[in-house]
């Protein structure tokens, strides 16, 4: 375990403190049916509709495991460069809650399907950290309680009950709220590339339990508190910041940290104790007698490994190596699989750097402005590619390209046809541009003197020429001609 560099430490009254964070991320497995029943996993739906009698824990019902969920767990393990266990065991985790009809959750305790692995996390400042994965195991989700439908009763909906989750447990390798956020973002990105979890945090497909403790640098680990069910990356950052400061304050006043479960209140931006969970930690795990051990052979693992897609780390390196992109640009492009796919379609057979600039500046800029995802971009990758071709062959200038992009964004259509129809072609014929330039030079003798004395004043002539040609003159040709005419 590395000790954090000074910049990550938190200043207290008695000096600097180091924050130590470990995370348990619950990721919903992408599958049609539930982990142990044939009911649908679809989000929403009328209450208690996507529920089989297995999920409702009716007497005599037996769980039968969904092969796809096992494959997804193995696929994720491979994506996390983790050890895959050919034999693992399902256990019962016993506790009582109204949204848990069985009175236990089927989970994996002693023998998880996936063992140790690691995730490389790129920080915004260019630094990379490595976060160890302790384990990944399969388990059932619980149902959902709603409290606002009745004055004295809670409603229970079992649609989520029995949906497969992967619990991904990190080692306590995270040292700041920024690292915590970046770790979950990276994990989410890997899961989405793998297609094993949709990563939709609003729908609860990805949520994190965050373990936070503080210590003086070099000391042994402090007592930790677990913040349950934080469901957005921003909230993870806020919860860590608040919790670390709370613990530091207690310790500096001579108090002790009580190991407990806390919840994050997003409205108040604070964590508070969940008293109901105090006694819940005695889960009396034991192997589920309804289920044999989960066993598969190395061929099963190898066939999944053979179908793994290129993951963000590899893709980033390839874009840097093959396309000459900067680490920063490549990082932005590979973060989401859809974005990377879009970029690669645009860059195919074209200059990768030019394509990256245009996609990042024009397309992402516009998408962010409208709050749209790349999947709903009105400009397709082939349309963007066509715009880049028009620039490359000199038909339009970079400036006209921006106008053209705007037209394609709002009205759609074939960029080349739009350029034809609207006369957006840049003028490259030196004769035509020369005439305009001669005219401007003749009318502005004072400016000519100025430009001769101070070559920077050339910009004024470029501007005037562009204005006179309706922005269609080739900037390159204009510059060359002006330099010649003004003898610069």
């Amino acid at each position, binding site marked *: 375990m590395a000790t954090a560099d000074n910049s990550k430490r938190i200043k207290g009254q008695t000096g600097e403190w180091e924050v130590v964070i470990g995370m348990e991320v619950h990721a919903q497995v992408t599958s049609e049916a539930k982990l142990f029943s*044939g*009911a*649908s996993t679809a989000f929403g739906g009328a209450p208690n*509709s996507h*529920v089989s*009698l297995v999920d409702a824990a009716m007497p005599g019902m037996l769980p039968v495991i969904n092969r*796809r969920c096992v494959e997804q767990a193995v696929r994720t393990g491979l994506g996390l460069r983790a050890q895959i266990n050919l034999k693992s065991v399902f256990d019962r985790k016993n506790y009582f809650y109204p949204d848990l009809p069985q009175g236990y959750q089927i989970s994996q305790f002693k023998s998880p399907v996936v063992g140790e692995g690691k995730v490389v996390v790129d920080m915004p400042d260019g630094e990379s950290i490595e976060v160890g994965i302790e384990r990944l195991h399969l388990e059932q989700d619980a149902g959902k309680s709603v*409290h606002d439908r009745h004055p004295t009763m809670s409603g*229970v909906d079992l649609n989520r009950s029995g949906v497969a989750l992967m619990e991904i447990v990190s080692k306590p390798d995270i040292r700041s709220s920024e690292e915590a956020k970046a770790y979950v973002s990276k994990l989410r990105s890997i899961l989405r590339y793998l297609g094993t979890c949709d990563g939709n945090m609003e729908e609860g497909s990805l949520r994190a339990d965050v373990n936070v403790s503080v210590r003086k640098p070099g000391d042994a680990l402090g007592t930790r508190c677990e913040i349950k069910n934080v469901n957005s990356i921003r909230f993870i950052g806020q919860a860590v910041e608040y919790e670390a400061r709370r613990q530091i304050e207690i310790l500096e006043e001579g108090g002790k940290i009580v190991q407990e479960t806390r919840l994050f209140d997003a409205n108040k931006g604070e964590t508070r104790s969940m008293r109901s969970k105090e006694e819940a930690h005695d889960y009396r795990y034991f192997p589920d007698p309804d289920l044999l051990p989960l066993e598969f052979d190395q061929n099963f693992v190898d066939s999944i490994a053979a179908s793994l897609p290129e993951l963000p780390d590899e893709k980033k390196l390839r874009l840097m190596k093959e396309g000459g992109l900067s680490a920063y640009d490549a990082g932005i492009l590979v973060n989401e699989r859809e974005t990377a796919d879009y970029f690669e379609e645009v860059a195919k057979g074209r200059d990768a750097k030019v394509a990256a600039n245009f996609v990042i500046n024009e397309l992402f800029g516009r998408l962010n402005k409208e709050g749209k995802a790349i999947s709903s971009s009105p400009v397709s990758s082939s349309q963007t590619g066509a715009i880049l071709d028009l620039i490359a062959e000199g038909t339009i200038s970079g400036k006209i390209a921006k106008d053209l992009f705007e037209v394609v964004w709002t009205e759609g259509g074939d960029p080349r046809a739009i350029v034809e129809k609207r006369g957006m072609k840049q003028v490259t014929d030196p004769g035509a541009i020369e005439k305009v330039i001669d005219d401007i030079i003749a009318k502005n003798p004072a400016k000519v003197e100025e430009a001769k004395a101070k070559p920077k004043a050339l910009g004024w002539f470029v501007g005037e020429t562009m204005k006179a040609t309706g922005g269609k003159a080739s900037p390159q040709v204009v510059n060359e001609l002006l330099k010649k005419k003004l003898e610069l």
Partner: protein
Amino acid sequence: MSVDDDTVRRIARLARIAVEEKEIPHWRGEINAVLKFAEQLNEVNVDGVEPMTSVTPMQLPMREDKVTDGEVPEKVLSNAPQTQDGFYLVPKVVE
């Protein structure tokens, strides 16, 4: 291995079984008798023996990822003491 009265109370609480105070010594005796009976197994040397999980040599059967069940809310709710608009109703649980 044996349990004391406090452990009996704790087990009852975890299992949500109401046990009256005067019954505790009785249950302590029952549980300790069961534990003592099972302790006979300690006499067998099981070094290097894998735990037996099934009496028939078979593999965990698996199911294809197909939706084949559910969409029977009326069946699911048929034994519920109280329901409303498709929800089970339970005493208020709120954090």
